[in-house]
Structure formats: structure tokens, C-alpha cells
């Protein structure tokens, strides 16, 4: 009997997946995905679909932030504040990004009552918004803020902070209005990024100098993929500190503010093995 060729051809380079989450070396049936790989993808997509609709547990997040303000009272003398966009629910949020960028009327009143308007401006407002992955916020926001507070305390210049805010059904641009109403020189928005198949827990970060309504992405700097398996919170905070320092020094953010932080790339891998 002659031995026939197997139906599925495996790929010997599959073991490279030890160094990446990318779906490499999947093998092939003819030139198509083998059944097992096809179904594994379908499962990941089903889970990501479910993650989009999981609501942020704001009560738990606010409680954790409250505990943080107690621990870090010198930098954070105020209690965290819960705000709401004009998108009342998830379905509206997904279809009406304009509403997710605007504060509800009652939230505007809450901020204006905080009485920062007219005083001398604070240096920084930190805004947490659920975005498209409440999971990313729930898992990473508190840890990131804690790392940032440590870096701010250790910085050469002093940083006066506005109260922490948490926005439900919020988009990135809502931070500009929040920052403006809190009379902050700079705003940093932490927001859940759209969930990927391999990373349903990504947190994104956007910095704007002199925040006010109507700004576009050209005025913002972004650091993305903050999560344990991506950019760790300490490293993200270090990069943000560079941007904050430069924004404050140059009084600018966005396209004119280039991220020139030293790349201390910790290659977890073995470099470019293709050159060997």
C-alpha cells in the first residue's frame, strides 16, 4: 500500500506562535483553513461580540477609585464623579457617536457645580469612559491611574489634579468638554478600545492640551493597547509622563507634539530570526 498525502498540511513554523498571539502556522486543507482553526476563530468572534454589549460595572469602578483617592489623598483630594453622555443606552451609543461625545445636561450641571470655573486652572483632569470595551476599563483603568499617580508624585514639577470622572456611554471627545468644565490645562481620557479577537481587554489613552469642545483627533496624542499582555500600565504611564511633560512645556498636543520618548524596547522574543 502506498501512503497517501495527509488531507491537512501542517506548518513547521507554527511553533513561532510561542512569540506572538497572531494566528500563524494554521496549516491548510487544500489552501483553506482546517476545521479546528476555523471553529476556533468562530468562537473568538462570538466572545468578542458578547464583550461589546457587556455593561461597565460603574458602581464597582467608582468604589475602587474612591479607595484610591483615600490612599492618595495628597494628589486626589476630591471624590470621583460619575457622569453620563447623551447616549442613554448601548444601542444608541453604537449608532450615534455624536451623542456619546456630549455630556448629558445633568452631568454638565454636576461639573459646573464643582466650582472649578473661575479659579486658577488645575494641571490635569483624568477622565475614564467605558468606550467599546467595558472589560478593558474594568481590568486596567485603576491600575493605570495608580501607576500614573506614582509617576506624577515623583515628577520634578508639581501636578494639581481635578476630580477623577467616570463617563458612561462615552466617546473620546467627551473628555474635551469634561476637561474644559473642570478648568484643566490638560485632559487624559482612558477609554475601552474596540475589542479584538485576541484582546477583548484593551485600554486606550488620549491626551489633549487646552481641552475644549470641537477639537479633532489632530489635537490628541494616543497610547493604545494598554493591558497585561500588551503595553503594561507602568510602561504606558512612563510614556504618558513624557507626553505630559512635553505638552506642558510646549503648550501643545496632537500632531505637533511628537512622541520622542526613548524606546526602551524590551523585546520579549529572539529578535529578527529571519536574518539568521
Amino acid at each position, binding site marked *: 500500500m502506498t501512503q497517501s498525502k495527509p488531507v491537512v498540511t501542517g506548518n513547521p513554523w507554527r511553533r513561532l506562535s510561542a512569540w*506572538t498571539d497572531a494566528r*500563524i502556522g494554521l496549516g491548510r486543507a487544500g489552501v483553506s483553513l482546517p476545521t479546528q482553526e476555523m471553529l476556533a476563530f468562530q468562537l473568538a468572534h462570538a466572545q468578542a461580540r458578547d464583550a461589546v454589549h457587556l455593561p461597565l460595572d460603574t458602581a464597582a469602578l467608582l468604589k475602587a477609585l474612591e479607595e484610591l483617592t483615600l490612599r492618595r489623598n495628597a494628589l486626589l483630594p476630591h471624590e470621583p464623579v460619575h457622569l453620563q453622555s447623551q447616549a442613554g443606552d448601548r444601542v444608541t451609543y453604537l449608532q450615534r457617536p455624536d451623542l456619546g461625545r456630549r455630556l448629558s445636561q445633568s452631568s454638565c450641571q454636576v461639573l459646573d457645580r464643582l466650582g472649578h470655573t473661575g479659579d486658577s486652572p488645575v494641571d490635569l483632569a483624568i477622565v475614564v469612559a467605558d468606550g467599546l470595551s467595558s472589560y478593558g476599563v474594568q481590568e486596567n483603568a485603576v491600575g493605570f491611574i495608580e501607576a500614573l499617580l506614582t509617576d506624577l508624585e515623583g515628577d520634578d514639577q508639581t501636578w494639581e489634579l481635578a476630580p477623577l470622572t467616570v463617563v458612561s456611554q462615552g466617546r473620546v471627545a467627551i473628555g474635551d468638554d469634561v476637561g474644559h468644565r473642570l478648568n484643566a490645562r490638560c485632559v487624559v481620557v482612558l477609554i475601552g478600545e474596540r475589542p479584538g479577537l485576541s484582546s477583548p481587554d484593551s485600554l486606550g489613552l488620549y491626551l489633549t492640551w487646552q481641552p475644549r469642545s470641537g477639537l479633532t483627533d489632530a489635537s490628541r496624542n494616543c497610547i493604545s493597547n494598554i493591558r497585561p499582555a500588551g503595553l503594561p500600565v507602568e510602561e504606558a504611564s512612563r510614556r504618558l509622563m513624557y507626553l505630559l511633560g512635553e505638552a506642558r512645556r510646549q503648550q501643545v498636543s496632537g500632531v505637533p507634539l511628537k512622541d520622542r*520618548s526613548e524606546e526602551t524596547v524590551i523585546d520579549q522574543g*529572539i529578535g529578527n530570526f*529571519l536574518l539568521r
Partner: protein
Amino acid sequence: MYRYSLGNRRWQFSTLAELMAKATPARSGDRLAGVIADTAEERVVAQMALAELPLKTFLSEAVIPYEQDEVTRLILDDHDVGAFEPVAHLTVGDFRNWLLSDHATQEILASVQAGITPEMAAAVSKIMRNQDLILVAAKCRVQTAFRNTIGLPGRMSTRLQPNHPTDDITGIAASILDGLLYGSGDAVIGINPATDNVAQSVRLLQLMDEVIRKYEIPTQSCVLTHVTNTLEAIEQKAPVDLVFQSIGGTEATNRSFGFDLATLAEARDAALSLNRGTVGNNVMYFETGQGSALSANAHHGVDQQTCEARAYAVARKFQPLLVNTVVGFIGPEYLFDGKEITRAGLEDHFCGKLLGLPMGCDICYTNHAEADQNDMDNLLTLLGVASCNFIMGIPGSDDIMLNYQTTSFHDALYLRRVLDKRPAPEFEQWLTRMQIFQDGEGKVPADKLPESFRASLASLPGGGS
């Protein structure tokens, strides 16, 4: 004012932009912008009114004022009256007939390109069915070159997209290897950097340049960073093949992206001065996508498909190697589901090709859109039939950096087999020479690991196999 009577009912549309918007097949972004037709009937009436409009109207009436917008000025100032002459007497409806007719051969279509404005292309697309968009696009041929030739008949290229969430060198190299061994990467090896700064761009450019040189791959590389970063990388003597930029169809959109037309001209000149192409010198790589103008609140009340077509005027000015409409990336606020994504992909490909652009498509969706792999299979097949120049290639359809799904290396091979498509000729010869493919047409991958890559894998911890 544009009027139309149907039976004893009279309809009116106050501006050209309103007529165009209401004639557009339904999609969520136009609903979000408040420019969509109120009823299904109003949409068809608008299409009927649009069909009666002379093409010449678009030369005398701008959807965004000439004084306010440099893209409008580009469109009207660069319009070629001589090239327009053969279709100058037509209405939009007649133009559809003409495009579908046997008068409009590949050569004739190429000769009228410079006479067609984006708004004319958008208008006629609005009264075309999907099969019309496919048929006419398949007649258009747009060929470009840098280190290989893209857009030849019977060919379909792929961008190898080895993104990694932390730009990890090993991770990126692993995806490049996977892609090359599945025959991907003749359009470009293009990385979206996770860290968007000059230092990182230079590092990634060097990585790709070294791989391309070591294996003598007839292809080009690109880091998809802001045009001003690439300009700085060129100043630092980094190995830049292609300049990337996301572009939109209004001046305000492009300003929100942080550039204007002068920036692009400067960057193109800088890339040309490096003289790195071997068989051609198309040095620009543009990405577009319906909804970007509205997203930047820079749409001037114009529907998103017309804004998209206007972006092609920006692209056309700079003779790109590749133009990629990233059709499903923007999300369900602009293209709600598989049906809207499919329609938009076919419209973009058609409009781009009609205007003379080397159109490719990032056939994709996000996890918050009402779409799945089956929708992508459908659009992939349709665009293959329409002779799309290139598609994306990514391991297992999963972009672990940008968090969306696009076409996989396997998907491209599926299309090559069912539609008898081949990669760019120079790249195809390389695949055969390197024993990556068993056949000479890039359809049958080798069963064993090709000799040239064995040493690299053997160097890994655990050795080769």
C-alpha cells in the same frame, strides 16, 4: 433647486449635495449625518432626478464651495476638458448606459479618466446596481509599479500586514514569515505601528528592508505612520520605499488628519529623491474609507460616499502605487452591517478605478458591526470578479494590533484558485524560485519548508524541523 415630477406628485431637492445624498443607497452614516432620504420612494425619485442631470452640471456647481475647500479647487482646476469631451454631452443616466456599453472599452475608459470628476463618478455609482459596479470596474485597468508591477490582467496582489500590538520584532518577523510562505506580500509589506513615532518607524523600516534585501524579495515596504513622521524618517536616511497617509475628501478632513496637499507634495518629492524603485516610481500609499469626513465633522452636508470619491481626487494627484479603501474599519455608525459594507466596497472600488486609481480594498469588519466572515467571503469574491488590484493578508484574519478582522493569507489563495488569479509577475517568479510554491502561478504552496528559510527556523530555541 432640483425638481422632479412623478405622476401628479412633485418632489424637490434644494441643492446638488442634497440630491446626491438622497439618491444614495441607504447606510447608517448618512442617517447619522441627517442627509439620508426620508423614504425609500424619495431615494428612487432622487435617483431618477439625478439620472436626468447633465454631467456638465458638476463642472459649474460644486458640492463644497471652491473658495472654502482646496480639494474642490484641485478637482476643478485639474479637470481635463479634452478628456471629458467624449462624455460631455451625457446625463448621469446616459453615462451609466455608456459605461456599460461596448463603446466604453478599456482603452476608451483610460482616455476619459482625467475628464471625470469624483462627483460624476459618485453620481453614476448611485444609480448603478452591484453588478454594474463590478462590470465597469472589471473593464478598467490601472497598472502601477515600484519593485514589481501591480494591476496587470489576471493578477491580484496582497498587502502582507504583520501588525503586532507592541511592535515586537520577533512577533512581526513571525507574521512576515507566515505571510511569505503563503505567497502574500506583493502589493507591499506594510506595518501599522503600535507606537506611532519617528524612532519606531525607522526601526520597523529597517527590519523590513533587511528582510527584503536578504531574501531579494521583489516587493516594497511601508510603515503606516503619519506623513510628517515619514518625512522625518527620510531626513534621518531611513530606508523608506512608500509614503503612507490616510486621506479624506475635504480640506477640513485632511486638516483633522494633520496635513494638507502641500504636505503630500513635499513627502512625495522626498520619497522620489531616494530613487529606491526598480521597475517604477509610484511612491505613495493612501488609505481612505467612507465616513471619515463625517467622523471629523468635516463633511459640509455631503453624503459619505461622495466625500469618499473626492478623496480619490487627492490620491490621483500624487500617482500612488496603492489606494486602499478600508471599508469596514470605521464601524457600524457609518456602515451598519454586511450589506452596507459590501455595497460601499463595490462603490469605492468602482469610483477609484473609473478615476484611474490602483484600487485595493481592506475587506474588513469590527466586532461591534453586524457582520461576520461570510459577509467578507462574499465581498472578497465580488471584488475578485471586479478585478480589484489588491487585498490585505493577515494571519488567520485576526489583526491583533488594530483589533478588527480582514482577509487572511488563506483567503487570497482561495480567490486565486476560484478566479484563476495570480500574484504580480516578479513576485510570482520569486515564489517559484524560492520553492515557496510548487507551481508557477502562486496557487499551490510547497508541502515542505523551503530550503532558504530552514536556517532561520533551525536557529530558534528547540532547533529546526
